[in-house]
């Protein structure tokens, strides 16, 4: 029986306004990838010359897909399943595919935030000692020795990893239960400025370390010949694409919580440039620190290992911190920043899942969040707080991102632009509510440039994975953990499409009506 009819809160939640939305969207876009992925990618792909493909990718892929996500979420007002269902009934599965990607990513993403919290605490005593690599994989993660014959999947829990992970889940669930305005927006209003200040202090300090200029030299010295290399361009599009949190439902979901008469494109530009601005900051900070480390070790910056990914953060950076004056303080700033950047992204990823279930199964926000949060937390703890957690994380991350998200983006562009030809409607929507007008160039970007580049990335990645495997991991393991992830995404998206909607999602009229004045649209409006 219905018991909660006394709920008087406004039915579709909303951000309190433009600033709250922008901060939340930036919080979502700025994540771990900005800090640990961008600097290394830029360095390895032409240094200063990388700026050229990077900016071109931002303008021709990042911002156009961001606008596409905004237009979809804002016009069709829902999480990805609701949105794609309202575009065309049979497209609902694509929405669930995006929800599934978010679910899978949330499960391992939380683990990394848990690591950052542990290292935040370890910073105060520099607990990692001199052998930071040995500390991370050995003392901390207690990584199973798979090369020495250990099993590829164990249930040997590591308490030091498990406890912070549980804390991360409790915090994330608490924020989501509180809702869009009182939870997500408030968390971002607090954490995002704190992140910028903490990271800013760290970067300024890093610039003045001995050897910092060598690091910056290595990062910014241009290698113009890189511009002729196709892989450099692919790397630039990949970096922009993965760092903006686009094409897997997050920005669709967030923009659905804006009021109808809300500016979309101008705030979108602020979000996109903020994300890149933070990446630049991270590039300067990370390479100043790497320059310092190389200086201390008496080697060239180019000879350093571990300049991207988890190894940069949890092996190389602790080594930098140990040698820095006032190391504990800057270690705390770094790992605190990492945790905050990750957390504001995690809650946005989880909101996609919560919104999808809430809308389809007619659940209250609290029920949806609790159910999804608890299931995800259990899976997260079982999969990633054990001695084989790092291997699982690395594998599932590779498949869900490089195959899952890229496929989602290609499908979205091909279906919407080529098959259903909805892009004029979406452009009309953007321009009807926004102050920055989107021109016809947008069609070229989302219809040709993005699908072409991403389809190439996707196919070459799949071929590479089939032929060469991944990281030398066991083939049977990759079959289950890697390709199995893909099977879970696809099966999940089909199964979740099947149940009936508790409330007809098609009983909906998009505003503003498109084409602006037509007989069919007016009749539909009158029929209500």
């Amino acid at each position: 029986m219905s018991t909660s009819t006394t709920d008087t809160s406004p039915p579709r939640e909303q951000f309190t306004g433009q600033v709250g939305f922008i901060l939340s969207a930036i919080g979502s876009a700025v994540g771990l990838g900005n800090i640990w992925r961008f600097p290394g990618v830029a360095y390895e792909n032409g240094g200063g010359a990388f700026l050229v493909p990077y900016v071109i990718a931002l303008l021709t892929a990042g911002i156009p897909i961001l606008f596409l996500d905004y237009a979809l979420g804002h016009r069709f007002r829902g999480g990805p399943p609701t949105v794609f269902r309202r575009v065309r009934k049979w497209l609902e599965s694509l929405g669930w595919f995006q929800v599934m990607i978010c679910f899978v990513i949330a499960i391992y993403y939380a683990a990394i935030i848990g690591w950052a919290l542990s290292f935040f605490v370890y910073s105060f005593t520099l607990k990692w000692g001199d052998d930071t690599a040995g500390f991370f994989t050995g003392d901390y993660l207690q990584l199973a020795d798979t090369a020495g014959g250990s099993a590829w999947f164990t249930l040997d829990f590591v308490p030091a990893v498990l406890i912070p992970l549980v804390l991360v889940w409790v915090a994330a669930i608490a924020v989501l239960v509180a809702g869009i305005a009182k939870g997500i927006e408030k968390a971002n209003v607090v954490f995002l400025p704190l992140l910028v200040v903490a990271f800013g202090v760290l970067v300024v300090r890093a610039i003045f370390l001995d050897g910092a200029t060598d690091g910056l030299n290595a990062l910014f010295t241009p290698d113009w010949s890189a511009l002729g290399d196709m892989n450099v361009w692919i790397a630039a599009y990949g970096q922009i694409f993965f760092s903006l949190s686009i094409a897997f439902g997050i920005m669709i979901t967030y923009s659905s919580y804006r009021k109808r008469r809300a500016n979309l494109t101008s705030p979108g530009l602020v979000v996109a440039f903020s994300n890149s601005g933070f990446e630049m900051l991270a590039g300067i900070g990370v390479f100043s620190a790497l320059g310092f480390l190389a200086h201390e070790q008496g080697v060239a910056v180019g000879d350093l290992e571990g300049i991207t990914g988890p190894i940069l953060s949890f092996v190389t950076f602790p080594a930098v911190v140990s040698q820095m004056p006032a190391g504990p303080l800057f270690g705390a700033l770094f790992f605190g920043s990492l945790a905050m950047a990750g957390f504001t992204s995690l809650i946005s990823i989880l909101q996609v899942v919560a919104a999808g279930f809430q809308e389809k199964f007619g659940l209250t926000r609290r029920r949806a969040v609790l159910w999804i949060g608890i299931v995800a937390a259990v899976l997260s703890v079982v999969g990633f707080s054990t001695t084989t957690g790092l291997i699982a994380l690395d594998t599932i991350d590779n498949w869900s991102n490089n195959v899952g998200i890229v496929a989602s983006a290609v499908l979205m562009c091909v279906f919407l632009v080529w098959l259903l030809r909805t892009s004029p409607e979406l452009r009309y929507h953007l321009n009807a509510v926004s102050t920055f007008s989107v021109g016809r160039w947008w069609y070229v970007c989302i219809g040709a440039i993005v699908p072409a580049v991403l389809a190439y990335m996707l196919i070459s990645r799949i071929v590479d994975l089939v032929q060469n495997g991944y990281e030398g991991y066991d083939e049977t393991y990759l079959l289950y953990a890697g390709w199995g992830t893909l099977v879970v995404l696809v099966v999940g998206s089909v199964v979740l499409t099947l149940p009936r909607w508790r409330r007809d999602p098609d009983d909906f009229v998009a505003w503003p009506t498109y084409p602006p004045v037509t007989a069919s649209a007016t009749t539909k409006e009158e029929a209500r």
Partner: protein
Amino acid sequence: MSGSAIMLMVLSLAVVWGGLLASILALRARPERADFPAGGTDDHREDEAIPERDT
């Protein structure tokens, strides 16, 4: 730092942070449209039934 590295660093920051500054100034100058198509008030109609399914 070499001259070309300094130049590229300044250029990168100018382009990206300049873009950020320009987009913020543009948004401040015109935060919202003054004219919208008819309708578009938030009546929450499509969402009203959702909370009632909780048993």
